[in-house]
């Protein structure tokens, strides 16, 4: 019997590995199969948002905090990369981790104290405020960021002496970033740190009674998540070659949040599904440009009405229901 179970497990695991491998091969061969520039650009866009949504999911889904202002840290990453590359000619490959670290440090300084003091929606409002403050500072600090004119002419990144110009080359870079990020997130979530985050999310008091240093792990969580937002910002700056503060408004933060929640907060695969669904839907309606955002809004509403827990997380909503039945505390 146990032998049979073992075989069955092996088969299931083998099957999931096979699917994963198949998916990876398809993604690797994608530029060879699809020659359309438009589709390649759409896929690159989706991959950028997968980085953003997955990293936001680390805060909202696993850290038990509620952040709305992810666009602010995306902005910090993008501007770090743009300024250092246009003024000092730093290389893309150094700036990629550096702008991540920069975004992390900014989140550390700005959100560290609020993370200590505030919970729930109040924390969310502070992140929202900081996101807008960052954008407005970028808009007004003209000597550093050129303000409303934006920063044009970001140089092409080079790879062993060859300039990276074509969309398919950018595609491979962002694919690499996504795969690396998903791998690292997976490993971190299965480590002591990830378990500490989840225990804080489930019950802060119990977690601190078990010896989890809540504040320290919160800060780690924020740093880790905003690091990836900064990386995405750096990639975006080099890919678009022009950035301005208009790309990082609150609406941008709301779109990322929508992808996280529509996909399913607190599940690993959720934000990926959410960003694929929402962006594909809006790109299908690209032809009738004005209706694109209407479709975006409608898609959010429809998914939320059909499945309030998000596409991927049936389990999470069950847990929430049980929690609500058990605790009287939550009721106001």
């Amino acid at each position: 019997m146990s032998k049979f179970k073992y075989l069955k497990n092996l088969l299931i695991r083998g099957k999931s590995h096979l699917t994963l491998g198949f998916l990876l091969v398809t993604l690797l061969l994608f530029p060879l199969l699809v020659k359309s520039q438009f589709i390649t650009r759409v896929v690159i866009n989706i991959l950028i948002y997968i980085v953003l949504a997955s990293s936001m999911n680390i805060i909202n889904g696993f850290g038990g905090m509620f952040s709305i202002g992810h666009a602010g840290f995306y902005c910090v990453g993008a501007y770090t990369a743009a300024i250092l590359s246009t003024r000092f000619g730093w290389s893309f490959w150094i700036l990629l981790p550096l702008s991540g670290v920069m975004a992390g440090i900014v989140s550390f300084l700005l959100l560290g104290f609020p993370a200590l003091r505030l919970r729930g929606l109040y924390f969310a409002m502070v992140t929202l405020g900081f996101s807008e403050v960052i954008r407005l500072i970028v808009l007004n600090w003209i000597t550093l960021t050129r303000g409303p004119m934006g920063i044009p002419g970001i140089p092409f990144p080079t790879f062993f002496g060859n300039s990276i110009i074509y969309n398919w080359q950018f595609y491979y870079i962002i694919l690499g970033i996504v795969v690396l990020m998903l791998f690292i997130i997976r490993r971190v979530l299965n480590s002591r740190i990830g378990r500490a985050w989840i225990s804080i999310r489930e019950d802060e008091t119990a977690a601190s009674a078990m010896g989890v240093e809540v504040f320290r792990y919160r800060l780690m969580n924020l740093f880790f998540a905003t690091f990836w937002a900064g990386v995405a910002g750096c990639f975006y700056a080099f890919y678009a070659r022009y950035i301005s503060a208009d790309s990082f408004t609150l609406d941008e933060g709301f779109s990322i949040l929508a992808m996280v929640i529509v996909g399913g907060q607190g599940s690993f695969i959720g934000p990926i599904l959410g960003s694929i669904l929402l962006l594909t839907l809006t790109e299908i309606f690209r032809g009738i440009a004005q209706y694109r955002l209407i479709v975006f809004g409608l898609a959010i509403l429809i998914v939320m009405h059909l499945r309030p827990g998000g596409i991927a997380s049936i389990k999470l909503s069950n847990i929430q229901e049980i929690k609500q039945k058990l605790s009287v505390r939550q009721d106001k």
Partner: protein
Amino acid sequence: MFYLQQIINGISQGSIYALTAVGYAIILGIVNIPSFVHGDVMMVGAFAGYYSVLLFPHNILLVFIIVFAASWFLGIIVDMVCYKRFRNSPRQVMLICTVGFSIFLKSSAQVTFGTQQKLIPNILGTNFFALGEIRITYVQIFIVSVVIFTVFLLQILLFRTKIGLSVRAVSMHKRASALVGINVNQAMKFGTCLGCALGGIAGILLGIYYNAVHPLMGGNAAMKAFISVIFGGINIPGAALGGLLLGIFENMGVAFFGSGYRDIIGYVILIVVLLIKPSGLLGRKENEIKI
């Protein structure tokens, strides 16, 4: 003199913020999440006002009644789409529904009304009182008096009628008010509609103040209302005080630092208040929102 003028401008702008903030505070008290659709409710109210001004240019009262009715009706839809089904779901579901509905309304308005701004015909003229160097325009006086009158009516509605009592009870404690026989669903719907209707009136006032309406006018104003509510506290006097103070601070700030920093002032106030006294100036500890 210059600063006195700034304070007067601040009061007239702050009174619009205050009216929006009062509506926002009612909704925030009832559903316990910040509603991001409020700015678009204001926008719809302003457009309803714009078209009814074109239809009835000499009857301002009728214009306000039409705006009130239109945004009340929109409130019913907002309640149906964003709040009603999700009262027992996690809070972020409601929040993202308001975001989705806001995107939907904003872009539908851009499609139907066009992206250009529309000029509201000047009903009150450009006359002003001059006291020395200080100018007080008729529009400013009109706006302040409309706001005072509306808040006065609201006070009667909330404190002298049965449905007002139930709205206040529901915003304090849902389960307890259900226990004493209040129809919670109905009271929540009524509160949402009332908040939206006040938002619509604030929207047309904003349109009159700036002489123009356009589909994206609401977002910034709703953020200001939200900041005022947090600043003053989640209750009606608090929201009104927060709105007025925010208007004055902003105009003083523009006088000191220049107009690029107008929006930063509001957000800095938001962050500082949340870090020092999250319940707001007039808020009580037990009125804080829990997630």
